[in-house]
């Protein structure tokens, strides 16, 4: 759905997205990393279980909540990727998606 215009001159860090190892540019937000990774959605809602994905990317809508390094309800758009980070889609109020 989204792509990087320039894939060359970045320092990269190693993260996992739903268990899959991925290299992403240093300084990128988790939201940017998962959007370019092509995940169809990043969480399901606690109420109806509907799929959701990042929406505002500036910290106000709370749609991009993910489980980051085992901690649930982290705003992916307000978190920068770090070497060794584990990023998982979130189910409802805070379990990783199976």
């Amino acid at each position, binding site marked *: 759905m*989204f*792509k990087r215009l320039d894939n060359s001159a970045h320092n990269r860090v190693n993260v996992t997205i739903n268990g899959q190892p991925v290299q992403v540019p240093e300084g990128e*937000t988790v939201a940017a990393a998962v959007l370019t990774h092509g995940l169809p959605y990043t969480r399901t809602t606690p109420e109806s279980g509907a799929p*959701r*994905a990042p929406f*505002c*990317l*500036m910290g*106000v809508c709370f749609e991009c909540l993910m489980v980051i390094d085992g901690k649930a309800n982290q705003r992916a758009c307000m978190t920068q990727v770090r070497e060794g980070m584990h990023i998982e889609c979130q189910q409802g109020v805070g379990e990783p998606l199976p």
Partner: protein
Amino acid sequence: MKQHYRLAVIGAGPAGLAAATTAAEQGVEVAVFDEQAAPGGQIYRAMESIPQHRARQLGDEYQRGRELVSAFRASGAKYFPETQVWSLNARREIGLLQQGQARAVTADQILIASGAIERPVPFPGWTLPGVMNAGAGQILFKAHGIVPDDGVVLAGSGPLLLLLAWQYLHAGVGVKALLDVTPMMNHLYALPRLPRALLAGHYLTKGLRYKRDLKRAGISTLHNVRGLRAQGKETLQAVSFLHNGREQSLETAALLVHFGVIPHAQLSRVAGCRHVWDDSQLCWQPHLDEWGRTSIDGILIAGDGGGIGGARTAEHSGRVAAFQALYALGALDRTARQRLARIDRKWMREESHIRPFLEAFFRISDDMLQVADDDTLVCRCEEVSAGQIRTAVADGHRDSNQVKFLTRCGMGLCQGRQCGEAVSHIVAAASGQAIQDIGHYRERPPVNPLTLGQLAGLHSEQTE
């Protein structure tokens, strides 16, 4: 970080940067708290790290921010990035969260420079993955050089939508269509405001240039679009709409929407500042005097957080508020405050000429603002539909807070940031009252999430 500052500035966009720089240059100790990792706010985001060629693709308005950011860096203002404000009150206590550690600081003067958010306008399917704010698309572009795949559809109304389409054009992104939902009748209402807008004609020229470039590039722009609808099972598959009385549909995996911007007023609300409804800008605004003073002593607001004026106005109003803060701190006398503010005031007047025209021209239709479709979710967090809100009103709940208590609308994680304005519109229309009487949700701290452990850590840190 100290426990007390003479001046605290919240936000490092144009207003906050200009204010902090001004105060620091006058020798006053100032602390700037900002949730982003680098200065610039959303408008000048990634200013210090963006590659030259990408900055050029964004246009000259973006590049203006460079000077502002470097002056701020050189000013000696204390800068605390990646720091979230979760509380603010009339005693001028600020609750902060920095690297998982909660802190409380006080200040003699506090300037809120929290900027704007995109106006959330609920429409059928807007919660589907694949639908995103146009501003979000712009953030991806500025901060990370990330763009949507070819075939993206842009929809909504307002200058930013046009700008983003133009920026995508220059970045080589294939925009499938630009769907303009601005009602045709707006042209008529905006016309009397045109002569004054011509005084700031460069904005109009720029807008027309963007339109011309898009047209030349063959990007399909449909005007007077109604009945916007995002469709798909788990994710977005198509956008449907009414154009010239005909139902149309475009297949796409990405829809970027924009319906103008409104003040991000969470902090002024939680502090208890008085707010008023502005019918031209269609939003709640903190009530400010000509110096940016709120109804609470020692709390000021500058920039779009105090009413939408754009990035340049934000910069000037930041300086004006800084002069006021310096005056209140005894660092400037009354005459100096007056004299120093004169130039910024002049620029603010120049900038203000365009606003009434833009507000009338890009005014969103009542149909959209009042969320005509009953099944559309208004509260994305708690999944409350427009129909449920109207039922609550029919059952006798006649203001935003009553509707919130009954339906949980606005009680989710975003704390009403995404549904507050829409609920005001829906309740006013359904109950036949003026929006001013409906009110907005009452906000309570924390306005940004923190854990009980972090809160407890605040106490132990303060008593040690």
